């Protein structure tokens, strides 16, 4: 049986039962990002001062392009999950909160797609 009041149930307040999934996705992407960030940092240091052709050649190598795609997806998924929690913690006006979370998710998808598209375009020689 449920101990929640009828009014509380009707308003749909309380847990959305998504907490565990959110928590797990945050950790899964965190673990993936440990080696990915170290790989990318080493790669970027190697590219300092490099010209456009060299940078494109590095991005376009199949392994690098694939890892960049994974890096972008994991980073932006991790970032939007984290920013969602930050907004939920500090923004208490319901409308502003929902608008903020939506903006974060839209921005993450847009940035992710733009980055993945750019990496693949270079890799496919476009």
């Amino acid at each position, binding site marked *: 049986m449920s101990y929640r009041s009828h009014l509380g149930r009707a308003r749909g307040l309380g847990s959305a039962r998504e907490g565990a999934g959110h928590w797990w996705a945050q950790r899964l992407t*965190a673990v993936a990002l440990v080696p990915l960030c170290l790989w990318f940092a080493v790669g970027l240091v190697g590219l300092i001062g490099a010209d456009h052709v060299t940078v494109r050649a590095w991005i376009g190598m199949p392994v690098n392009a694939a890892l960049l795609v994974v890096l972008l997806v994991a980073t*932006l998924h991790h970032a939007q999950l*984290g920013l969602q929690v930050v907004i939920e913690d500090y923004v208490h006006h319901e409308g502003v909160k929902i608008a903020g979370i939506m903006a974060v998710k839209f921005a993450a998808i847009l940035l992710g797609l733009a980055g993945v598209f750019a990496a693949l375009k270079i890799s496919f020689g476009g």
Partner: protein
Amino acid sequence: MTTRDRPLSPHLQIYRWQWTMLLSIVHRLTGVALAVGTLLLVWWLVAAAAGPQAFADVQAVMAHWLGRLVLLGFTWALFYHLSNGIRHLFWDAGRGFELATGYASAWAVVLASLALTGLAWLAGYGII
């Protein structure tokens, strides 16, 4: 439905200040900064795909002293969030909660973030 009389958890201000609390809020701050920094990463990639002129623009901004300062901050934020993130993963696995371990891992995070930042920039300038 009354919420007014419910017990509240103790407010942040009544806790005795400990410097490990600073690491906690800095983890969140660096996380937000890194999220904003993904704009730079995507700009760099899109410019590289767009052509030589767009790429030259990015390089000019990054090479400016202000751009370098932002990149330096970004590097440290990345290594801090990475190091402290690993600390969090150990906590998630139920390890490292002892007081002494908590302080030791805090020091390890601060030192690792500074060492990795120094290493990356010294390597970047070809000094090591």
